[in-house]
């Protein structure tokens, strides 16, 4: 192999490896099975984490472990119920805390927490 081609080969090898790993993304948050057939539209889990940190974490905990509000991790809450709570509120949680695209995104994220 020529001296000039070695960096190119290394570049291609590392880039392809990165793309393969990123395509597999083995530690992806678990897909919320409860969403199947529920009719609830799920948004982007990535944006959902941001929405969650801004609106929900103060009561439900940064990692969903609970606080003033109940814990969400591992509760297996159906997505329809998550949407119902967000839309209607519960206790000190006001109704429509988030709505629209932000609601769809945060439902996806909360569903991943409850599925753990």
């Amino acid at each position, binding site marked *: 192999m020529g001296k000039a081609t070695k960096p190119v080969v*290394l570049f291609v090898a590392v880039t392809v490896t990165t793309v393969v*790993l990123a395509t597999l*993304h083995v530690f992806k948050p678990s897909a919320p099975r409860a969403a199947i057939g529920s009719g609830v539209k799920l948004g982007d889990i990535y944006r959902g984490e941001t929405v969650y940190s801004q609106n929900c974490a103060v009561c439900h905990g940064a990692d969903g472990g609970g606080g003033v509000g109940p814990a969400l991790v591992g509760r297996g809450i159906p997505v329809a119920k998550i949407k119902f709570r967000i839309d209607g509120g519960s206790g000190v949680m006001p109704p429509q805390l988030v709505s629209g695209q932000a609601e769809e995104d945060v439902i996806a994220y909360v569903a991943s927490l409850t599925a753990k």
Partner: protein
Amino acid sequence: MGLLLDVNSTYTHIVTTVFSSTIAMKVWFATAVIVLVVVQVSTATRMWGRFEGVIRLPTPVVQSIHRWSGRLAFLCTLPVFFHCVFILGFQTPNARVAVHSIAGSFVYGVFAAKILILRGKGYPSWVLPVVGGTVAVLLVTLWFSSAYWYFTSVRFGF
């Protein structure tokens, strides 16, 4: 499957003991990388005979700063790489994320090639600055498409 969930959960738990969310961790590590990239570009430029009037340090000191800031920058990219590649994966839901995913796919490949060129001999003199500059451009692109967006569109905080 249980192991995968444990890794994700443990990682999130560790990160959120310091930061408000895993995304907040990412943007601050990315910002640290960008600060170090500025150091890298400045010291590299000085080593190539420019900025001598601005950076008035002996060349061996500049070289040492360049090496250690590079090592530190690489370390700072690792947790971001883990989150982006293993948890989020390659995504293209909009232009910003698509640009971020594509640039992120190339950055370690170009970096690895740069290290190989750095340790090799006989390459034309323009190769190393071009490849090093490409790494810097990719990292700046990644920062603008993630941390800058977060600070300006979401919030500026930990």
